[in-house]
């Protein structure tokens, strides 16, 4: 692949981004939008040059309507910067996306997080980007700034075009401004850790928790070997085992009562558990998203009932792997350190359960194969010159 410039062009405003896209398109180059460089690998035409454009300096907070609990920010703002601002007003954006290639996930840009449809354990409690993204501006393939959605929590006016770009990996446009829904910060966070003898046991307990009179904010399934490398001085777990971390966000008394309820469920089956209060629970959740640098990183979107099983299977492939799953929603994330990505990728594909899809985040670029249905149709109309790349598939 040829690159116009080794250094990305840095922009600090939506207008600057629009101009940079126009310039690149005018010179026949393709455009790779780069925030904190955590986007999944995007497929480009190898016969044409690629101009990287960095949005890291396009990072202003435009407006925070505190009583309306909405915030408008530039897409290059980092999650950490936004959370710090919101915390002053006892609000937050309830997301905890994973690290990519060992980098601090809090340093990821909001535009990049959204364009790669990245979310973490809190997806179970707060839903996906459709719940959080109210409106947006983006730069299209002609270098024009386009707006969609609005700033209200309900909006049925026209096509909700900003949602189309979620997960598109910059293939249809580059976010420049985002209008997001914020929430009041939870009073407390507590979690309980269960040591399950195997994946089947973890799945059984997950199913029981999901039908219990509790409202977990997250249920994370962690490979036993992965968990044993935790830096939090927690007990180790044996190979082949699966650890469940079940978290609650609520008042302290309500968190504690729910933890007692789920502990009682597990105790009936003789399962060991440890409960963690606020700071410990927060640190554990953060560690669960701190995927280390790796040669191959993947994300599987599947069913909740398959999550624990996939954690065990993926970890068995490479014991040094970092494998965690959102057991409540069926998203499994795995990072493999000392492996041949091209050799491991097909093995992972073979293991996929029904209804699941596998997304390469690092290590392999999956070339577009065959017709892409609706995306191909849209690319022909919205980006006929192929200024932007294609998402991995």
């Amino acid at each position: 692949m040829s690159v116009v410039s080794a250094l990305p062009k840095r922009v600090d405003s939506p207008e600057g981004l629009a101009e940079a896209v126009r310039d690149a398109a005018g010179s026949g180059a393709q455009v790779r939008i780069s925030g904190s460089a955590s986007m999944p690998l995007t497929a480009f035409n190898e016969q044409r040059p690629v101009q990287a454009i960095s949005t890291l300096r396009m990072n202003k907070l435009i407006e925070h309507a505190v009583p309306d609990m909405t915030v408008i920010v530039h897409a290059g703002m980092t999650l950490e910067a936004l959370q710090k601002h919101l915390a002053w007003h006892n609000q937050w954006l309830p997301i905890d996306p994973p690290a990519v290639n060992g980098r601090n996930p809090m340093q990821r840009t909001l535009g990049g997080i959204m364009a790669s449809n990245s979310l973490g354990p809190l997806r179970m409690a707060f839903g996906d980007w459709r719940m959080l993204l109210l409106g947006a501006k983006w730069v299209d393939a002609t270098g024009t700034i386009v707006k969609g959605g609005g700033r209200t929590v309900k909006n049925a006016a026209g096509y909700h075009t900003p949602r189309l770009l979620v997960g598109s990996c910059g293939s249809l446009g580059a976010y420049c401004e985002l209008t997001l829904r914020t929430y009041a910060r939870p009073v407390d966070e507590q979690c309980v850790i269960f040591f399950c003898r195997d994946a089947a046991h973890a799945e059984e307990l997950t199913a029981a928790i999901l039908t219990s009179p509790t409202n977990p904010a997250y249920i994370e399934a962690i490979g036993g070997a992965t968990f044993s490398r935790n830096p939090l001085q927690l007990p180790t777990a044996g190979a082949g085992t699966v650890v469940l971390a079940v978290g609650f966000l609520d008042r302290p008394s309500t968190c504690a009562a729910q933890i007692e309820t789920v502990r009682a469920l597990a105790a009936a089956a003789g399962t060991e558990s440890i409960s963690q209060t606020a700071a410990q629970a927060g640190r554990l959740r953060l560690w669960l998203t701190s995927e280390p640098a790796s040669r191959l990183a993947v994300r599987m979107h599947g069913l909740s009932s398959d999550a624990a099983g996939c954690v065990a299977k993926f970890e068995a492939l490479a014991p040094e792997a970092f494998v965690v799953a959102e057991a409540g929603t069926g998203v499994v994330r795995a990072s493999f350190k000392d492996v041949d990505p091209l050799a491991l990728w097909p093995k992972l594909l073979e293991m996929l359960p029904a209804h699941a899809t596998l997304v390469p985040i690092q290590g392999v670029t999956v070339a577009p194969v065959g017709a892409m249905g609706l995306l191909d149709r849209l690319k022909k109309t919205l980006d006929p010159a192929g200024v932007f790349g294609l998402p991995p598939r």
Partner: protein
Amino acid sequence: MSPPRTHPVIAELEAIVGGGGVIAQADELVVYECDGFTIPRNKPLAVVFPTTTEQVSAVMKALGRHKLQIIPRGSGTGLTGGIVSIGETPGVQVSTARMTKIHQVDLRNRWALVDAGVANLALSAAVASSPLHFAPDPSSQRAATIGGNVATNAGGLHTLKYGVTVNHILGLEVVLTDGSVHQLGGPAGHGIGPDFVGLITGTEGTLALVTRVWCKLVPRATAFRTALAFFSNTRQACQTVADIIASGIVPAALEMMDGSMIKIVEDAFHLGFPATAQALLLIEVDGQELGLDEDLATIEAICKKNGADSVEASRDPKRRAELWSGRKRAFGAIGRISPSYCTQDACIPRSKLPDVIEHIAKICAKYNLRITNAFHAGDGNVHPVLMYDETKVEEVRRAMDASGEILRHCIAVGGAVTGEHGVGIEKLPYMRDMFSPTDLAWMHKIRAALVDDDMLNPFKVLPRDGVEIDLLAPGRKVPQ
């Protein structure tokens, strides 16, 4: 019985779906000339009722060959004229009303695959023996189809906590105008790639015809706490709404009625509402039992802090039903005092509620119309109700003009022209107040990419240059 319309496509449609699957008699088509928005009316050429995705695909191809407008239809409970034929050549309505199969329910993984014609409430009924349900609850949920919910991104009373339809859709099977069938998402939801489910939901049948839906099922609340508060001042009530949400409590419902609606309901049902009250808040928290009493106590304290004249908090299911009865019967009560009424729908930032409610009253005074308000205050979704007599054309015009001024004011304060009803043809003129020509052009490009020959529900949702639709005569006034 009048003779059937004799367009050659009708025989082709009958060959696809069978003779009983096509309606083409003029008198039988009367009930299909409008939806819940009854001002614009125009009979379709025919209504066809496919029962399978394969039939929908064949129907789309047949209608494409004849270059006829294709108008998707669920059960006709829309509120913006989205199924009315526009232009001199009537279109054919493709109804999913006979596609009513619930194909699969996976309680462990909390999803169900249903045909688009399954009624909203029928899905929840089908899983009633489990702790799960389908959360979107538009007031038309007994009749409204899930495909229709998807088309309009329907909301309801409980969207503040549970979200709107798009938050409960994991996947769609859609048919494009060329007859091609596409699966978007599925039981595992959206992974990577553009969120086509998120895009198509809410496009009112202008991009694709939805044939099957993978619905998310969520736990049904098993415990409730309800509070009813009266205020002598609208601003106090609005501040209470903001304070409750800022406290971290996300109520399942946070409904408001203004002074005139309180009086209308009291006159009709004698529920004991205070005559001097200018605002009523109905607040409900739900979920599991744990923590609800604390939430209710916090809500009660916030109401009192903001000067509520009275607050009644209840955990008794019977009393809960009584407290809700006034809100649920509010729109029916309007029928006692006005022969016709139009329920408008816009969404505004919550902080603008007091000013907008006052401004709506001024607009209706200017147009000499009676107005009342009952709305979803928690998410800023206002529903001003304009009362008029539909036998008086001049009064209908005034109601429409006042509606327009209200909607433009809501947009001006940062709001959306519709919160949950959709645009259809009713709100087309105001889309340009909300979106720039560039923004609308992008939407038109998406439509052009997916829809062949402009056949699928044309003239809806997206305004067009040089085209103005007279709602009182939608079949005659469109430049072709």
